[in-house]
């Protein structure tokens, strides 16, 4: 009998709890603009975010900005969940390689009619603008970019007799080998340290020799890593890698350990990576760190560097698109872009470009194929596997490239 009472009471409590939590909560007074930015902003320039928020809130009475920081390894899965739940942010930062798939799916609002409301839009960097454009329409606003440079130990190079940055890849390789011999007494020393699987680095060689990753032919994607020019670049990369790097880094992708960690332990004289590597090269070498543009195999030119970067887009599900555009305009204002530049980034317009190493390296750049499913090639780690295969000697360069081409074509051609 008592069980019965107990049971009814418990059932009642649960029912009311379930109902209470499922009743729609009252909306907070005023409006909120939800913005998804990556943690780079949180760690690198939070004051710029705050400045943009202030500017926006001052000109939009009753509005608050809610910044929700995201991480690179799962922000797209989280974004997909919000699309499914009709719960998307009003503004989202997308990596430039992430954009195409979502533009093709019609996820972003067309910003073309409002282009003039964004500072310097007439002079946007070609690479970033291309990543925000699909079918001729504009779906994103370039935010910032970054290229790749050589971060090196000025003291070691000087000691080896090289006062000025090398002018060609061959010269650079010779210098690295000499520095390596000079430091051979240091356990585990390698003249240069880059993860072998870091395709952002390796594929620069492909483009330097006039090759490419894939192109569209008769409406179908075809992998071109096994083309003559691409193979020439890859073979040169393999030779360069073998001459200057430890065998053990063939299977590393540059995230564990970070190349700059190896640098800070004094076990390498050079990294090839984003310009912000100088943040983390260690206290010991703070005074002897320098940067220069990685040279091409052709004397006097820079090797094409991967132009990384982010765009800001407005999901079509947003009910506050006008406000979203206004916030983006505040965040990419000329003043903010110049501030981003001071932090070592490349600003979003050619009219703002300065003469830093990072910006000079961007003079020659390469980018991934503008394919709907390109992001799946990245997620499927096809390129990493490809590089590991020929760097470790498991497959010849040509065979590995053929396998990669097949995988890329299969992924890109999926309906």
């Amino acid at each position, binding site marked *: 009998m008592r*069980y*019965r009472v107990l*049971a*009814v009471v*418990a*059932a009642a*409590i*649960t*029912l009311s709890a*379930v109902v209470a939590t*499922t009743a729609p909560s009252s909306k907070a007074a005023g409006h909120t603009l939800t913005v998804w930015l990556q943690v780079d902003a949180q760690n690198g320039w939070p004051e710029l975010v705050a400045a943009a928020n202030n500017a926006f809130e001052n000109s939009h009475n009753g509005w608050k900005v809610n910044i929700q920081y995201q991480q690179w*390894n*799962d922000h*797209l*899965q989280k974004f*997909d969940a919000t*699309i*499914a739940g*009709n719960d998307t942010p009003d503004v989202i930062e997308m990596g430039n390689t992430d954009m195409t*798939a*979502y533009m*093709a*799916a*019609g*996820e972003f609002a067309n910003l073309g009619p409002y282009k003039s409301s964004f500072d310097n839009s007439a002079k946007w960097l070609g690479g970033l603008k291309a990543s925000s454009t699909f079918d001729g329409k504009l779906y994103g606003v370039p935010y910032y970019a970054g290229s790749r440079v050589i971060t090196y130990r000025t003291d070691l190079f000087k000691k080896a007799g090289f006062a000025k940055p090398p002018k060609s890849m061959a010269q650079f390789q010779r210098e690295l080998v000499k520095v390596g011999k000079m430091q051979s007494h240091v356990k*585990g020393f390698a003249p240069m340290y880059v993860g072998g699987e870091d395709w952002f680095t390796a594929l620069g060689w492909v483009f330097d020799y006039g090759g490419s990753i894939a192109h569209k032919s008769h409406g179908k994607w075809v992998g071109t890593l096994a083309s003559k020019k691409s193979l020439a670049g890859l073979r040169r990369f393999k030779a360069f890698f073998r001459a200057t790097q*430890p065998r*053990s880094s063939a*299977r*590393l*992708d540059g*995230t*564990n*350990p970070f190349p700059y*960690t*190896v640098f800070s*332990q004094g076990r390498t004289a050079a990294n090839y990576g984003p310009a912000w590597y100088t943040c983390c090269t260690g206290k010991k070498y703070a005074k002897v760190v320098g940067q220069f543009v990685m040279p091409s195999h052709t004397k006097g030119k820079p090797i094409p560097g991967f132009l990384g970067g982010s765009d800001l887009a407005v999901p*079509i599900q947003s009910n506050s698109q006008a406000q979203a555009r206004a916030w983006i305009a505040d965040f990419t204002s000329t003043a903010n872009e110049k501030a981003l530049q001071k932090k070592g980034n490349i600003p979003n317009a050619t009219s703002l470009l300065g003469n830093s190493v990072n910006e000079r390296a961007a003079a020659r750049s390469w980018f991934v194929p503008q394919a709907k*499913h390109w*992001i*799946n090639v990245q*997620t*499927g*780690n*096809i390129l*990493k*596997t490809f590089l590991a295969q020929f760097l470790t000697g498991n497959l010849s360069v040509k065979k590995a490239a053929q396998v990669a081409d097949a995988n890329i074509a299969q992924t890109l051609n999926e309906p």
Partner: protein
Amino acid sequence: MTGRRIAGGSVPYLLVLPVVLVLAAILGYPIYYLVKLSLQKYGLLELVQHHGEYIGLDNFRTVLHDPVFWHVLLRTVVFTAVNVGLTMVLGTLGALLLVRVSTWVRLLLTTGLVLVWAMPPVVAVQVWSWMTNSENGVLNYILTDVLHVGNYFQHNWYETTFSQYSMVTSLVVWGAIPFVTITVYAALSQVPHELVEAAQIDGARAWRIFKDVTLTVLMPVPMLLTSLSIIWDFGVFTQPYLLIGPGQQTTSNYLMSTYLYFEGFGKSDFGIGAAISILMLAIVAALSVVYVRRMLRVGEEA
């Protein structure tokens, strides 16, 4: 203890109602939606439009015809068998050890087991990652400079799939042992001493005593632990995902859970993801049905 099933009218239904309500409210629609998704073509475009295209069992056909699925399944089955086996054997041996040591050592070991059990998986992964990294990880240091078992200088433990999964297995088993050891140990202390002593007087050897007396009394416990371990290890996600790394997951080193995550949701192909989910559920159910049936029978007979 014999069960006495009372026919209690509406009482049992009321008692069960809260749980049923919560489970139905939270999982009801998702399970229905998952089944629906598995029968649809549903990519990014369909996600944005909130509308998929019915294609019947095509998703299932695609997955089952994909050799990758079968390789991944095999790998997961082997992985599960190895992990469950190691966990149960080492865990039980640990419990037997606990019986034989002095009290203070037992206290030490139990404290150690609790410390290990309490470590959140995401934390344990970070520690493993740090210990096993090729550049200055302590594992390589111990093997090379302390134990002198070989030259593991800058050895990359994540180079081959087998090596990667050795690392993952060591992490998973390490974290799973405390639960087994502590439970089995407590169960051991419930084995009637008289029975053991009687068998010892009879001259039976330790192994026979263990088999005939101890194991028989204990039987429900390993049953429960094994079936739970199978279910958990088959679907384990956090450790392989984080330890091998999101950036290193490929068709040659997926487990079912990461395969589901990357091929389904990583590539924004939700129909395929749903199909794989349902297949996974069916497989786990099939793998554990033997144990679950045994457990149910033991419970009902009680």
